[in-house]
């Protein structure tokens, strides 16, 4: 599911990073970050989990505040079209750099892959 999320975010043409992973690197002009919060079991059969709910934070940062607002909503539409469950229109995030602003949303997806 993480791979699917990254692939969908990369389709917008911006770099995608794990939240917290930039270290000493400079921020790109605009970029996505993500973080996997959990992958809890949903249903079980014969004491084995047969489906999971993955919970991701999906964030977008940019020097362009308007793009920050719009891109998050565009990403929401694409993720929803690909099976993600997203409620609301996101929330503001803090940035390490005064040049950038960010917004984020929580994206859930059911994984019926088993084990």
């Amino acid at each position, binding site marked *: 599911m993480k791979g699917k999320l990254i692939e969908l975010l990369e389709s917008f043409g911006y770099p995608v*990073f794990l*939240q*917290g*992973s*930039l*270290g000493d690197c400079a*921020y790109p002009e605009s*970029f996505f*970050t993500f*973080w996997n*919060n*959990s992958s*809890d079991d949903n249903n079980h059969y014969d004491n084995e989990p047969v489906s999971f*709910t993955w*919970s991701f*934070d999906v*964030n977008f*940062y940019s020097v362009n505040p308007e793009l920050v607002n719009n891109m998050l909503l565009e990403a929401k539409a694409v993720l929803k079209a690909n099976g993600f469950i997203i409620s609301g229109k996101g*929330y*503001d*995030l*803090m*940035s*390490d750099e005064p040049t950038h602003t960010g917004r*984020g949303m*929580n994206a859930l997806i059911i994984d019926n892959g088993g084990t």
Partner: protein
Amino acid sequence: MCLRFAGTRAVLDLAKMSLSFEGLDEMMKKLERLDKDTKAVTEEALTKAHEIVTAKAEQAIAKSNLPARGHYSHGDTAASLQRTPKIKWSGSEASVDVGFNIRKGGLPSIFLMYGTPKMAKVQSLYDAFYSSQTEGEVINAEKEIFLKAMGEIE
């Protein structure tokens, strides 16, 4: 969902948590038939829910659990945690505020809860409010209070 946050997410300011679990309506009706004080039971359940979530948040922002073991922490975020349950009624629906008060120094809770591109989030703080484990604990505690009020458990 038990942790039903109205409006924005908890750390962006205090959020409202209301009662919501399967079977709640039936339990309310039964309490009414038994002539019990449904308002008092509701407030007791919300107070317990607040206690569970707040204790988890408190633990998560202990200096030993913060980035750099709290070296950069001045305690403002911890001080802004809403520790006193304040039950609010809007018609027949009750809620209790949980989370950090941004106007009282809780702004860094946003860094901690969601991280930044250069700093990983404090997962335990996020989980205090949004994990399925917290949700399960809150629901079980609330149901227990209702069942006790109905005299079905001691």
